[in-house]
């Protein structure tokens, strides 16, 4: 296809207007006509030359005939002259010949005026009387009496010699004759030529001699010394004239035809096409949805009229299509830029808007604030109450935020449970106030229709462009992101404004190296190393089981677990990481690396414990439940988000044989009531609580709390036991297990042995 296009382009002709084509055709036609006329004219000239040549030949023949006829006539006259009685008289009795020659020979009128000389000769050929002025020969050759020409002084003279006969008197032959003498004459012929013949081919007056003097030219040779002009051939002149007239007429007809043709092409073809072309140009240049210009002119050519009507109809249809298409485009734009569920603008709209803002406010000191909303534990809500409920939650939250926002401020849904809004000309305090109002609005949403029991909150991150410390707009986005993450942290306010203080969090999240390591570890299990920390049974001070703790090594160097979990939480990779950890621990169990008659305590993240497939995932430990004590440690915050699902899963796990431990008890805002409903076997007091045992007042509270929990049948584990005093205290408080550096740091398996 591309080749074809190239070929087409290669053979693209220079585009010309139809008038140019018409003119080209006319010029080409005139050229062809001129060439053919030229050749016709050449043919006529050739024919003319041939006719002239033929005429010349005919003229020559004519002149020869005239000469011959003239010679013949003169010969006849001389012959007749020779029979004149007086000639014979002079030959017989020449005694008076000189007188006769002078007075009678030519003057008697027996010979025409053309005869300028004459003389009589004896039988022997000798002249009877030689006259000095005579140019006739004195003697003639009696054996050679042919006529001939002399040219003297540019004059042609015909010399004729004729015998003078006398009848023989005999009885037997009366008609017999004998030569008694000769007559020689000299005559001019030029003047005679015109008389003797009507020349059809020669201009009689043009006959001229080529030489001035020559003696004795045979009659048949004379033609070679004559020049003559050929008459103009009137027929060919008439024919040539007529042909020229015809050519002229044809030229006039051609010019008239060409003008008419040009007019017809211009008026009937070019004009309509030009108008249609202009019409199409107008259509091209105008806005698509504007009504097209009118093309009301009537064309004289049916096809063009049809094309015009078709074009007009097509244009109208096209207009309709454009109109429909525009509506569809609008719909599509709306669909593309709006979240179908909540009606809020979507991430695409956000990004476009954000890109515009980046352009508009890049060099501006105009304060811009960006607020990010992240619904806490929304995944748990989805998982616990189902997606329809989750959807309703999102709708209500979006609606609530939109209500709070001022006119012109829009809400964007930029992720599953993430919303955003951009505020212009907004001071940080005002942004925080708006965020706070949004938070309040969200908290006031009633989810009774959805039967959601736990309160739904949103973590809100605010980032703004400080006029004194200009920040790139692109930075605002991650700043807000960090702020949201920070807001999600337990114990933190749900509204956090980005500041240098929380910037460090971002280093982990944004560390490419850690990111790569974590993602690689999740995908392949590489670099994951499980460390185990003993948990001591205070009854016998023996290791009862080990808590499996994740370590990721980078070139032998262990990365701080806090950084990993910040990233995992930020990226919501809890479940995926847990699955890898489960496999690693199961592998350690399978290898028999865990000491016999002990157990393993496995940390299960909040998102994992409420995950529908957690049972299946943890079933890999089923083979080891008989030999090992396997405890699942669950944080209380994870239970709060979706307690029903968590409870269901925990019950199932308990039935399988797992022990459930509530981890980090006392670090959050969980209440005792939760504990009563939770089907946990072990409660692990957070290290913050254990450390508070130094304070007497706190000691008492913890003492009572431990007693109360212990009385409900729960086993108690104290974390962070680093000293014997602290050990003694917890033993005294009724704790069953202790964990801490006093008993052992988290170590690789090799050190467990």
């Amino acid at each position, binding site marked *: 296809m591309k080749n074809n296009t190239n070929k087409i382009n290669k053979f693209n002709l220079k585009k010309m207007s139809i008038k140019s084509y018409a003119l080209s055709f006319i010029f080409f036609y005139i050229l062809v006509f001129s060439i053919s006329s030229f050749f016709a004219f050449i043919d006529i000239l050739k024919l003319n030359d041939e006719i002239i040549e033929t005429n010349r030949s005919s003229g020559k023949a004519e002149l020869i005939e005239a000469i011959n006829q003239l010679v013949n006539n003169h010969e006849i006259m001389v012959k007749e002259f020779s029979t004149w009685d*007086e000639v014979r008289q002079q030959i017989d009795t020449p005694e008076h010949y000189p007188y006769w020659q002078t007075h009678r020979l030519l003057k008697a009128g027996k010979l025409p005026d053309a005869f300028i000389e004459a003389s009589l000769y004896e039988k022997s050929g000798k002249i009877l009387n030689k006259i000095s002025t005579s140019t006739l020969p004195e003697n003639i050759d009696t054996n050679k009496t042919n006529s001939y020409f002399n040219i003297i002084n540019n004059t042609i003279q015909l010399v004729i010699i004729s015998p003078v006969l006398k009848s023989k008197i005999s009885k037997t032959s009366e008609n017999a004759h004998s030569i008694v003498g000769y007559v020689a004459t000299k005559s001019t012929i030029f003047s005679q030529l015109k008389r003797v013949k009507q020349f059809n081919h020669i201009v009689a007056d043009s006959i001229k001699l080529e030489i001035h003097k020559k003696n004795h030219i045979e009659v048949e040779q004379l033609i070679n010394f004559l020049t003559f002009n050929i008459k103009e051939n009137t027929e060919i002149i008439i024919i040539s004239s007529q042909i020229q007239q015809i050519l002229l007429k044809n030229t006039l007809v051609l010019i008239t035809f060409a003008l008419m043709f040009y007019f017809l092409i211009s008026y009937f073809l070019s004009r309509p096409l030009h108008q249609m072309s202009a019409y199409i140009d107008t259509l091209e240049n105008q806005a698509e949805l504007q009504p097209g210009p009118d093309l009301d002119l009537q064309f004289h050519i049916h096809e063009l009229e049809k094309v015009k009507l078709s074009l007009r109809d097509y244009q109208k249809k096209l207009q309709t299509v454009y109109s429909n298409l525009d509506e569809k485009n609008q719909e599509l734009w709306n669909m593309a830029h709006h979240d179908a569920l909540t009606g809020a603008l979507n991430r695409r709209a956000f990004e476009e808007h954000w890109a515009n803002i980046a352009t508009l406010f890049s060099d501006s000191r105009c304060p811009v604030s960006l607020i990010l909303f992240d619904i806490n534990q929304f995944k748990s809500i989805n998982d616990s109450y189902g997606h329809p409920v989750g959807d309703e939650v999102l709708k209500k939250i979006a609606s609530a935020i939109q209500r709070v926002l001022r006119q012109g401020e829009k809400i964007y849904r930029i992720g599953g449970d993430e919303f955003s809004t951009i505020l212009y000309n907004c001071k940080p305090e005002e942004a925080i106030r708006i965020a706070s109002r949004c938070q309040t609005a969200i908290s006031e949403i009633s989810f009774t229709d959805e039967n959601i029991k736990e309160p739904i909150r949103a973590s809100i991150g605010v980032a703004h462009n400080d006029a004194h410390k200009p920040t790139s707009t692109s930075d605002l986005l991650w700043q807000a992101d960090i702020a949201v993450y920070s807001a999600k942290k337990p114990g933190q306010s749900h509204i956090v404004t980005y500041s240098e203080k929380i910037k460090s969090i971002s280093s982990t999240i944004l560390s490419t190296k850690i990111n790569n390591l974590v993602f690689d570890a999740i995908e392949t299990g590489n670099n994951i190393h499980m460390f185990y920390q003993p948990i001591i049974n205070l009854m016998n001070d023996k290791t009862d089981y080990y808590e499996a703790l994740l370590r990721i090594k980078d070139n032998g160097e262990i990365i701080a677990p806090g950084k990993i979990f910040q990233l995992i939480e930020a990226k919501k990779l809890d479940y995926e990481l847990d699955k890898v950890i489960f496999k690693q621990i199961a592998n350690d169990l399978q290898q028999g690396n865990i000491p016999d008659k002990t157990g393993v305590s496995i940390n299960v993240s909040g998102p994992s414990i409420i995950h529908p497939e957690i049972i299946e995932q943890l079933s890999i430990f089923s083979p080891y439940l008989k030999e090992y004590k396997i405890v699942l440690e669950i944080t209380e915050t994870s239970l709060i988000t979706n307690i029903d699902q968590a409870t269901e899963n925990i019950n199932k796990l308990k039935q399988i044989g797992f022990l459930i431990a509530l981890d980090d008890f006392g670090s959050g805002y969980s209440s005792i009531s939760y504990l009563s409903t939770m089907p946990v076997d072990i409660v692990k007091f957070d290290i913050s609580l254990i450390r508070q045992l130094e304070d007497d007042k706190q000691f008492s509270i913890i003492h009572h709390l431990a007693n109360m929990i212990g009385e409900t049948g729960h086993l108690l584990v104290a974390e962070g036991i680093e000293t014997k005093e602290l050990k003694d205290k917890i033993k005294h408080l009724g704790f069953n297990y202790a964990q801490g550096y006093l008993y052992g740091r988290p170590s690789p398996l090799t050190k467990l042995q």
Partner: protein
Amino acid sequence: MFSSTIKIISLLFLLLSIFINPVSGEPVNLKVSNNITAVAEFYPGDKNKPYILILHGFLLNHNFPTIRRLAESLNQSGYNVLTPSLSLGISQRKKSLACEAIHTHSAEKDIQEIALWTKWLQKKSAKDIILIGHSVGAIHLAYYLSQHPSSTVKKIIFIAMPNFNYSSFSKQTSESQNKAEQLFANNDFTLHNFKLAYCEQYPSNAENYLSYLHLTKENIHQFINKISVPQFLIKGSTDKRIDHQWIDKLAHHNINVINVDSANHFFDYEHEFDLLDITEDILNEK
């Protein structure tokens, strides 16, 4: 109808016979001197009929129309006719001789030739000979017959006979005659241009010239008087070349003069038939 067809056919045959057998004479050559041959036309006719010699006029020949018509007509009537042409010094002369031609002939030489032709006729027939002369030919015959009387010549007919006396018609003058006579007296035989009869120029020697000038009325009278045979003279009333008074006077010299009204010297047109009729009448006269 039938008779008319016969007539047409007969007429056609008659016309055919005329074209197939036209009247034509036989050319006759007669050597009259050493180097001169005279010519004549002989029309043979009924051998029992007279032989007629018809002589032409001055410088003419036997083909002159008056002579030829008469000869042919008479021949058609059964006469044997000889029409000689005087040679006039030119052998085998075929045409009339121009005045301006060199004239080497003389009246005497003419008479000699007539004598020879008469002899030729006499040899041819030995019968009756009738002489007819036209114009100067008539003078020649009178001259001849006066000089050579012959028993065979039975009649002589002069037609429009002139004379060489001075007249309003004739060009010769007493000066030219005197000049000629002077030259002749001086034995000058060179060529001179004279005037004679109707000729303004007549190149001849004096002797020959004078021979014609001698043919005067007086001499003619003498010739006539010497002639013993019946003489007839036919003249046209409008003939301007003859002296009518003189001719009328000739009637007193035993000459039968017949006048043809309105006829000219040559009896042209319808007078051709008058001449023929009269001639035949004369010939038929016993």
